[in-house]
């Protein structure tokens, strides 16, 4: 059985206690998207400004557990000011990290706990995911050992992806 310290890394608790980029941007002009986790009732509100191919600003509101809140906080810090393409790449990489089998994680020394993650995408070879590129976000990789919590960690990312899609669609519509 994986221990709590695998899940609740210090950096996660820090972002939970002191969330970054908290609040809502004025919408419009900001894109506003709500995400729900029907399992636990958590909800998240992502507001973002997309200008000239950049996520120029982002804010997070809503309520949730330490995993969903810290993941959203870490996400906001990681994507703010970044080009949209890069953000999309980060979303992809993060979701890959959340969908690989725990035993393929570079840091997973112990094997045989038997839990397999709920996967959106095919499991990848460990070297296919650049955990280093995720920076602080790598702290969330322990979540994979707790399959029911994966949706907590991915809630904000799915919501952000939807926000980018909607921002793109509205830009095209007005162009």
């Amino acid at each position, binding site marked *: 059985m994986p221990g*709590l310290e695998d899940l*609740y890394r210090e950096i996660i608790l820090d972002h939970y206690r002191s969330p970054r980029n908290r609040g809502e941007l004025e919408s419009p002009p900001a894109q506003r998207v709500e995400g729900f986790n029907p*399992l*636990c*009732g*958590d909800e998240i509100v992502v507001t973002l400004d997309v200008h000239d191919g950049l996520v120029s600003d982002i804010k997070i509101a809503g309520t949730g*557990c*330490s*995993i969903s809140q810290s993941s959203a906080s870490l996400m906001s810090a990681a994507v703010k000011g970044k080009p949209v393409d890069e953000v999309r790449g980060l979303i992809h990489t993060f979701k890959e990290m959340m969908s690989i089998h725990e035993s393929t994680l570079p840091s997973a020394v112990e094997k045989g706990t038997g839990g397999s993650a709920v996967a959106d995408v095919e499991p990848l070879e460990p070297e296919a995911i650049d955990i280093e590129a995720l920076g602080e976000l790598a702290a969330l990789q322990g979540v994979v050992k707790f399959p029911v919590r994966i949706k907590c960690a991915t809630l904000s990312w799915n919501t952000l992806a939807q926000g980018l899609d909607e921002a793109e669609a509205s830009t095209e519509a007005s162009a």
Partner: protein
Amino acid sequence: MAPVSSDVRGRGAEPGSADLSLLRKDFPLLAHEVGGRPIVYLDSAASAQRPVQVLDAMREYDETTHANVHRGVYAIAEEATRRFEAARTKVGRFIGASVPDREIVFTKNATEALNLVAHAWARTNLQPGDAIVLTEMEHHANIVPWHMLAVERGITIRWIPIDDDGKLVLDDLDRLVDGAKLVGITCMSNVLGTLTPIRTVADAAHAAGAVVVADGAQSVPHLPTDVAALGVDFLAFSSHKMLGPTGIGVLWGREKLLAAMPPFLGGGEMILDVRKDGFTPNDIPWRFEAGTPPITEAIGLGAAVDYLEAVGMDAVRAHELSLTRYAMDTLNRRFGDDIRIFGPADPAGRGGVLSFAYREVHPHDISQVLDQYGVCVRAGHHCAKPLMRCLGVKATARASFGLYNDESDVDALAEALDQVGAFFG
């Protein structure tokens, strides 16, 4: 069937004196360990564990008697049919049905039982503009079927509110039920544990000419139940919350109402005759049981009823009330303002369900830490989102008791909650 273990039969006849702890050894799962610690199962409101007597009865049936029911003209098929119908009668007697072999409909679960009423009774009897009444503490199973019907039929839904103590506010009851065609009410909240004044509401509803649909999913497993005393017209409940298997639930309905209702699902078993130009529905209760029913599960449910009756529902209630009182005292004394237990402050007004908030820690995080100590509680909205909104929370942690729990389980919960405090500060 093996007798109920120990010598507890009837010992709980005096309220508060019940000691059912010896029954624990009847439940194989409770002997298991999680992460090297004995399991502390406090989630019986979600699903109860099964005693070996239930598991054995199902296995014995499968190994010696199984065949499809109401079809074969050979010995085991006839015996399977006899046992299946005997389980029906047994369940009917357990809740005081006056015509047990005709008033008990087997469904998939309590949810399907409530949907059956929404389909077969309400679609026949409700017109656009009609009103129905629900309470704010209903489970989604007694809300969503009515929302679906509201969209389809243009009916309106009125709500009986709750107060700060988690009880129904009945000041406006007569006005709320006036002109209503149906009242849907839970006997016991799956979140707050609140025992509702079902008879009062049923009498007011009947005076207004409304039919009463009661959700007994939480109450039937834990309290003596007599449908005549409740005064309701339909009662839905699930096997898996009352020591039986999953896959089978029950709808009890008054014979007259059931007899006047059209079928629910179509298929085999529910017909008397099928022609190219139509069909003739079967008599009740089979009219509502299309297709091969959950036969092994009915045998298991019957064994669960036998088990509960051997212990005695008064003893079950006395034991769980005493445990609830102990839990509320222990948690409030130990954690003071750090814990908020939702629902009635008086244990006598509630079943063995304790939803709580602990400091500012999210219920998912509470549950995750408790799991490290083998303590199984539910975290989430408990399929009661309207109630969560009334309480002003997104989710709660919920500990719920079964007859196999004892004070050591409450102590383990309190110890583990200390660890939650230590971890999240």
